[in-house]
């Protein structure tokens, strides 16, 4: 039987506010345990939550960017459960009336195509603390630094069929939230955590199968692998005539498998009810329109603009538009040199390779957009061959000055003087009579290949600086004479 995978994703996105969602404690990653948790975060008696308005603003910004209905009235609820890293014994979340309703999102795929997915809802809630199991022998430590970090939980409809789509969605979501500036999207630090709901059904069926939920998968690669192994596990069970147990599973990256999470002794009943310590959030049209007007250009429209305005390929446009800083860099280079296609090639090629090699982001790039533009101008006016350009780029990267400086200092200027080139050609022809005879005897097809020998010799003699196009024209002229 052919099986179809059906997946919906839930993403917990940490919002990049200065302070926590319900307290004034700092919202930063990596502090000493419990140094970033105040009395509210600790759930101390008598302490009360106060909503961080910036978290609300960020949630609305997200909603607007996916054309979602914004809840004019949204309500916080208490989700009750006991766990040591949940200090109050309940999590403040939104269950009955979330701040962001149904929306939609267009995902660019690596092949340049797009596909739409539906967002079910997005709601605000507080993150839990962390249980630390390896710091004290035989005991569990509790670190409440993370408790109260603002989260936006983004839930999709079961619209995904392949792992590739799921990863493309997460990348597009990452791109969207970092463009909006509402999250740093740092998956390694848990700023973006993904739960995958996955079920299989016979291809062609309309009914959904029993699903499992894989919790807290924290990298694009793990998402892809977790989907692969979980789908395989379910397929094996179904093909053996077994049934899928609806449960929560954990992806174990070390063994590349999903495991059932230790089942709770009783089924979870979260006993949601409206949080009486907080008033409903009331959002009016003016607030929404003001925010809408200040939204930055989003990756989707930016992608389209790059294609139309700069004549880039869908693929290049999608890559460049996916990161706000990268897109800004591209536009700065292009503005400075007027060569969009070359700029895109260099940024996505040599520059990205160098950034990856050094493991740094575009915002830490040692080559300024103006410097790169200077290099591109010298390529465009044929001063530099692509080989020489790479050499100049390395110089730019190492801070050896502008493209002009490097060309001058290293004498890298392309030799485009036909007199100089002709002298070089004459010398090579004089020194290699046998090859000249061979060339002249050959037919049209072979001649092209044989000319390569002379080009190589001259390039060697010119230290690579000969203008390849001019050289080729002059050489053929002389050989054919």
């Amino acid at each position, binding site marked *: 039987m052919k099986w179809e995978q059906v997946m919906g994703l839930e993403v917990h996105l940490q919002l990049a506010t200065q302070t926590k969602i319900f307290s004034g404690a700092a919202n930063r990653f990596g502090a000493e345990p419990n140094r970033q948790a105040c*009395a509210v975060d*600790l*759930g*101390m*008696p*008598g*302490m*009360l*939550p*106060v*909503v961080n308005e910036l978290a609300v603003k960020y949630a609305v910004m997200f909603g607007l960017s996916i054309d979602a209905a914004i809840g004019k009235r949204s309500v916080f609820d*208490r989700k*009750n459960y*006991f766990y*040591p890293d949940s*200090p*109050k*014994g*309940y999590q403040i979340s939104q269950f009955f009336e979330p701040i962001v309703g149904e929306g939609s999102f267009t995902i660019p795929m690596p092949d340049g195509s797009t596909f739409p997915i539906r967002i079910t809802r997005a709601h605000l809630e507080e993150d839990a603390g962390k249980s630390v199991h390896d710091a004290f022998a035989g005991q569990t430590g*509790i670190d409440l630094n993370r408790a109260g970090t603002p989260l936006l939980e983004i839930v999709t409809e079961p619209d995904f069929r392949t792992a590739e789509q799921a990863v493309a969605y997460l990348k597009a979501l990452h791109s969207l939230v970092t463009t909006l500036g509402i999250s740093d999207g740092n998956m390694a630090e848990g700023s973006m955590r993904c739960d995958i709901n996955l079920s299989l059904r016979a291809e062609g069926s309309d009914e959904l199968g029993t699903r499992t939920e894989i919790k807290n998968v924290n990298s694009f690669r793990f998402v892809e692998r977790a989907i692969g192994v979980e789908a395989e596990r379910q397929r094996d069970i179904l093909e053996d005539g077994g049934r899928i147990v609806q449960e929560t599973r954990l992806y174990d990256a070390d063994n590349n498998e999903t495991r059932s999470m230790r089942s709770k*002794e009783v089924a979870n*009943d979260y*006993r*949601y*009810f409206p949080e*009486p*310590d*907080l*008033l409903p959030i009331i959002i009016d049209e003016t607030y929404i329109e003001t925010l809408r007007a200040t939204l930055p250009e989003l990756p989707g429209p930016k992608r389209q603009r790059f294609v139309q305005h700069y004549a880039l390929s869908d693929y290049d446009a999608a890559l460049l538009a996916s990161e706000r800083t990268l897109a800004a860099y591209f536009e700065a280079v292009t503005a400075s040199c007027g060569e969009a296609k070359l700029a895109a090639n260099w940024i996505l090629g040599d520059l990205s390779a160098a950034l990856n090699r050094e493991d740094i982001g575009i915002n830490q790039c040692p080559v300024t957009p103006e410097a790169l533009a200077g290099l591109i101008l010298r390529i465009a006016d044929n001063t530099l061959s692509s080989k020489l350009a790479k050499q100049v780029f390395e110089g730019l990267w190492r801070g050896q000055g502008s493209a002009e400086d490097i060309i001058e200092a290293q004498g890298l200027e392309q030799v485009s003087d036909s007199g100089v080139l002709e002298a070089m050609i004459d010398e090579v022809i004089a020194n290699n009579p046998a090859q000249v005879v061979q060339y002249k005897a050959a037919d049209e097809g072979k001649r092209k290949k044989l000319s390569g020998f002379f080009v190589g010799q001259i390039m060697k003699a010119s230290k690579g600086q000969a203008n390849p196009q001019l050289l080729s024209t002059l050489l053929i002229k002389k050989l054919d004479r």
Partner: protein
Amino acid sequence: MTHTDLCYASATTLSGMLDNRDLSAVELTEHCLARIKRFDSQLNSVITLTEEQALVAAQAADQRRAVGEATPLTGIPLLHKDIFCTAGVKTTCASRMLQEFKPPYDATVVAKLSAAGAVTLGKTNMDEFAMGASNETSFFGAVANPWDTTRVPGGSSGGSAAAVAAGFAPLSTGTDTGGSIRQPAALCGITGLKPTYGRISRLGIIAFASSLDQAGPMARSAEDAAMMLNAMCGVDSGDSTSADVSVPDFTASLNRPIAGLRIGLPREYFGGDLDPDLAAHIHKALSELEAEGAQLVDIDLPHTRQAIATYYVIAPAEASANLSRYDGVRFGHRCDNPVDLMDLYERSRSEGFGAEVQRRILVGTYALSAGFYDAYFKKAQQVRRVISDDFQRAFSQVDVIAGPTAPSIAFHHGEKAADPIAMYMEDVYTLSVNLAGLPGMSVPAGLINGMPIGLQLIGRAFDEQTLLRAGHFFQQRTDWHTQRPTLAGTSS
């Protein structure tokens, strides 16, 4: 002035004496502390006495008076219900769970009263986590009613009521979730006001039922309550449910005549169940207000009967979540040698909470459970709105609603302890006021068998002024509020 007279002087009188240097705050504080130390063994109204801090605060108050920077409350002693967090001072909520808990912060109410210069003498006994109407659920033992120590003082602010009635302090703080200021005020013969929900910040008050809890003043007169309320109110950025409404000077409007005031008498409060003796006293009290020019009007609050069931779904439901934080992990009681997490939770909570608290957690958890939410919690919320609408309608006809505060005089210790429903009936007249979020006040209105009874006045939202005015005029015409109980070992 004798020691006893001094201890029974009104806060208003004492404030004048402090102003005139007839008395120092240190002397006054010493009188109060001495009285507490001498007589509280009979009452058990105080859990923690903060003698040293009190004297330091009193000295500071005297200095403040000396430099002319005093408020009316500067140097006036008061006691805080042990539900208000006090920085560095044990705040137990009368529970074993918080037996040793010292918060690192003051409740907003405590901070405001301290900033006004009031001198905190200590923390008063109460029903555990404010759950009770007799002050018998305290981990630190029951409180006795100073009018008859075999009887209860009411609850949950029983310690605060008994202490003020016994002359330990002219003022105390209370909280009222379903009647916990008004009912003990009635049973101990003092004046207690539960302001409108949102009038006073809840920050730093240990939560029982968040949508119902409200702090308020307990005093020996409406005038004193007004003076204290002036220092307690105001919006607090730390409590989202505190109301951003203007705070009037409650003292300034006390003497505005009440002629023409329309007072509604709900038929449901004066129906067949009401004790005839109590009814007679209430009618007599209302005739005093009539004599001041108020009009008495019969009104209906048709859903009064539903208030108890509604309250005993909503309050326990909220409490069940509010009390989840007491899990033995970060603060509060932790059981010895837990074998695993479940054991830690179960034993810490079973040992830390008393029977009534456990009962309400169970009731509340049940009411919120899957499959029961709609039938209980959601239904209760709907009925709450209907009850609120009843009051809205009534207040289109009248300015104040009046009736008894409690259905009977203080009962004997143990009389209702085994029957939770009978105990819950104690709040039949008070808890609909909390459900509607309205202000309510109890003033002493007579003695039956030597025990005080209370007249309850209910007002429109944020109209505490009218209640205080009516109470003040009533107290100008009557002397029930100046009656004193006799404690064993005193001549007066």
